[in-house]
């Protein structure tokens, strides 16, 4: 996710619990895959937060001040990495149904057709 070459995800917060069983996958992810994820994304600020007694989640803060929270409760480390990669890959825009698949500011090059256009 990078608009015109600028990465949009600024900060990733990994919140986990060191006692609960739902955080098992996140704890394994933090040991095995988080270092390589950090190295692959030097522009990203990754923070781990201990939140005892709560279920784990990933929180992504984007440049447009948007916050996306993804619960990683009871997930395997591979699934947690997939979630983290998805957060990194997306812009911070709101998840709504797309109006069009082609977004443009200049829809016409040779002039928009009217009934009086002559070829």
């Amino acid at each position, binding site marked *: 996710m*990078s608009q015109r070459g600028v990465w949009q995800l600024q900060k990733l917060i990994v919140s986990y619990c060191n006692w609960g069983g739902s955080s098992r996958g996140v704890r394994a992810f933090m040991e095995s895959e988080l270092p390589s994820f950090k190295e692959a994304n030097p522009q990203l600020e990754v923070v781990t937060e201990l939140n005892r007694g709560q279920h784990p989640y990933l929180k992504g803060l984007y440049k447009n001040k948007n916050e996306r929270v993804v619960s990683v409760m009871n997930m395997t480390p591979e699934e947690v990495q997939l979630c983290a990669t*998805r957060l990194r890959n*997306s*812009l911070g825009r709101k998840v709504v*149904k*797309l109006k069009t698949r082609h*977004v443009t*500011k*200049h829809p016409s090059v040779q002039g928009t057709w009217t009934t009086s256009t002559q070829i």
Partner: protein
Amino acid sequence: MANRRCIQTLAQQLYKSLQHLRTLTYIPNLPKLNPKSHHMFPNANFNSPLIHFTTYRHYSSDQHDNSDVSKDDDSEYDDDDDDVMENNNVASCVVKKEYSPEEQETEAAAIGYKVIGQLQRSDRVFKAYEPVFAVIQIGAHQFKVSNGDCIYTEKLKFCEVNDKLILNKVLMLGSKAQMMIGRSVLPEAAVHAVVEEHALDAKVIIFKKKRRKNYRRTKGHRQELTKLRITDIQGIEKPEMPMPTPAKKVEKAAVTA
């Protein structure tokens, strides 16, 4: 005659027991000849009505001892069906096919794009708008694009975010004065694009119902999309645009001086 009949029945029983050892639930009372017989009657009375002269027919309603059958099957067919069993198990799991670089390139070329490399900070790829358009095909979808447009396509497999791509399936090029139509593809044309994001679309709920039949199903689906930003169109003469910024600078210098 009676003796011959007895021998015949004996032979039949032997044949059947040897042929269908596993499926046999009724164990014939053969004295000492059949090693599987558990019951040894002291008086082998062949003429008694207790002996059933079973035929060779097997019915689907025959009670099979399924555990025994399966165990025997597995032990016998282990070598042959090992691969098949493994394949079935693997297919049930998520199969991630490992593509070699050549396979990746050929598949990507088939869809209609080619990965060049990562976008560097020093690349000045995002230019001003030029009044040139191209009709591009990616996978099964076609778009009419121009410089600076954004396109949402199905997820492109072999590219990361911030990758530069060349889209080579160009069907038509056009500008203010000129138009080039490909048959069906223009060979010399190329369109450059940059991958902006790989994201999931909003969730659509697929709801199935058959009225008065007590049938209702709900399924959620999020499509994976890739957003491409078109940066350059090559293969057609672009009209020269007058540069506005140098004129302004000249004016400011004249005003200050």
